[in-house]
């Protein structure tokens, strides 16, 4: 009976292709929008999670509050060395970065540079894809060397090899000539690439990594830092590690009464970002889901028309022994198939749309199997729900009246 009903429902759908498609349209639009939005939202979440997976879980950001911090409260290289001595600290690196300009062969572009010390490469999951990394000597001195972010290579030198290129970088009136020694990929860089692609790459800065001291000199804060990233050796105790670092800094600077240092949890920040993305995704999805409701009403409408049109068929089936349940089942199957097929088309359309949107935003959208299954189950449920009334109406037709209907 089930197979028969499926066959009959399918035949009924094909008999009225255009009408079936129009009936499905509401469902298709609804499912496609939900899939596309969730895909883009989950893609953004996944991107953030991936980038900070290694770092985030056990890291805290320590900063000196700029409003309260005076010169003597700023974090120094000695502080960092002391922090590194702490048993629970695995990595510590100051966050030094700035904007400026990079000039090469008379061509000038925007520049984003990061200062790199011994722990930075590990912290940022830096991978060398060509050329070489900084040597320990370079990291500890003011050598005029630089590494370029892979995504910036094309912007700087087109298709040629950037390794060995000599460029001039400047920031706040200070200039420095550096030699590019390698091309790297880091988590921070892909994070940056999340920024909407304006279609005009001229605005995107070239990202360079220079030894910490070079960066400090460029931004002018020569001897001190405002912000540190500390990674604990155990994800479970990073809170405690953060507190230890705060106490150490307060002791070093003798300013425990000022509460000048703060710690923020990277995971917390990520959670917050994820929550916001989640709320936005859910809200937009809910609006899109409204079109499923409208689609469902459309399905009910068409099924009612179909019942009226097929009164005679229903009479014949009843005369031949179809029970109320058989007729009910047949029409329910039909409306579920309409919405399920609509759901499948919607999922395909949604996947394509979310991929397109992802490409446009510059990252990969993600649609999980669960989301697809939920979408399909939901669209079937819409068919089930909105099919009940027409199917009930069909099943209660009096066979004599139905047979008389020509």
């Amino acid at each position, binding site marked *: *009976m089930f*197979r*028969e009903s499926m066959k009959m429902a399918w*035949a*009924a759908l094909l*008999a009225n292709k255009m009408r079936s498609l129009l009936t499905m349209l509401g469902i298709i639009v609804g499912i496609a929008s939900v899939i596309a939005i969730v895909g883009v939202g989950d893609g953004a979440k996944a991107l953030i999670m991936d980038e900070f997976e290694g770092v985030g879980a056990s890291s805290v950001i320590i900063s000196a509050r700029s409003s309260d911090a005076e010169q003597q409260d700023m974090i120094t290289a000695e502080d960092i060395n002391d922090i590194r001595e702490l048993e629970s600290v695995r990595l510590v690196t100051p966050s030094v970065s700035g904007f400026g300009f990079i000039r090469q062969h008379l061509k000038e572009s925007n520049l984003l540079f990061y200062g790199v010390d011994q722990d930075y490469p590990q912290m940022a999951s830096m991978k060398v894809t060509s050329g070489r990394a900084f040597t320990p000597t370079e990291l500890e001195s003011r050598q005029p060397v630089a590494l370029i972010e892979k995504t910036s290579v094309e912007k700087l030198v087109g298709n040629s090899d950037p390794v060995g290129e000599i460029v001039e970088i400047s920031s706040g009136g200070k200039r420095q000539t550096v030699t590019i020694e390698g091309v790297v990929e880091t988590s921070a860089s892909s994070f940056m690439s999340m920024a909407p692609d304006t279609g005009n790459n001229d605005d995107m800065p070239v990202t360079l990594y220079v030894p910490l001291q070079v960066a400090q000199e460029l931004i002018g804060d020569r001897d001190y830092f405002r912000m540190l990233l500390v990674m604990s050796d155990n994800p479970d105790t990073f809170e405690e590690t953060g507190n230890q670092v705060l106490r150490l800094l307060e002791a070093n600077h003798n300013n425990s009464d000022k509460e000048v240092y703060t710690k923020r949890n990277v995971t917390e920040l990520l959670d917050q970002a994820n929550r916001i993305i989640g709320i936005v995704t859910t809200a937009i999805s809910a609006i899109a889901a409204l079109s499923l409701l409208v689609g469902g009403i459309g399905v009910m409408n068409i099924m009612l028309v179909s019942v009226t049109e097929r009164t*005679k*068929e229903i*009479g*014949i*089936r*009843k*005369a*031949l*022994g*179809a*029970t*109320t*349940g*058989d007729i009910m089942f047949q029409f329910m199957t039909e409306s579920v198939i309409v919405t399920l097929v609509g759901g499948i088309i919607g999922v395909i359309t949604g996947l394509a749309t979310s991929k397109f949107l992802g490409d446009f935003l510059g990252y990969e959208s993600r649609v999980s199997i669960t989301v697809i299954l939920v979408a399909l189950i939901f669209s079937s449920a819409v068919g089930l729900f909105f099919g009940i009334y027409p199917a009930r109406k069909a099943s209660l037709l009096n*066979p*004599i009246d139905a*047979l008389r209907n*020509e």
Partner: protein
Amino acid sequence: MPTTIHMRQVNKIYTTGRIPFHALKDVDFQVEQGDFVAIMGPSGSGKSTLMNIIGLLDEPSTGSYELNGIDVKDLTDDDRAYLRNQEIGFIFQSFHLLPQLTLLENVELPLVYAAAPGKERKERARAALEEVGLARWQHHRPLEVSGGQMQRTSIARALVTQPALILADEPTGNIDSQASAEVMKLISNFNQRGTTVVLITHERDIAEHAKRLVFIRDGRLSEEHMEKHRNNSAGTYSEAPSPSEVNHV
């Protein structure tokens, strides 16, 4: 002989309009197993109502009706559907085939509702089509074949469940005389093999295939025996005997 149809004092009153309409009046009607009864009557006489009640498509307002010994009074809709499926084969004037299905699928339909397994269903439907001489048309759709072929298909559909009773409502009303002859021959053949047949017609020569002839007029039944008719070469069916003559049949 076991009785297939046993009706006692059946009345049917329709109350859809403002004035109730008495469609059947105190009908006593009995059909034995293996019989072949033709019901004749002008339009509006109540023959369709009688047919619908016999076929369990409608219920009597009063009186009792037993089909194969089962009192149908207290049956649920689904019970009736089951009995229609198992005990009755319908042949309609306008065939009532589903246009979107092939002839084979149409014949299969009663077996679908009888929950027969797919393979068995196909085999039995094919055999039934073979019996009515339509095996090579099995994959055609109703609109691709002639009226006579459509009616033969509906005969195959009526017989595929091997019902105790065939109910034929003007089976030749929409087909030409040659096709009519074929259809009646098929119905007679099945009757000879033991299937009870109740036939509604207003054509005398069609009614002649029956063993018994029953008239209906203004909701009342009356019967004339075939022998009487057959001795009467002029054919006097134009005037039905008055109900008072033979009301118990």
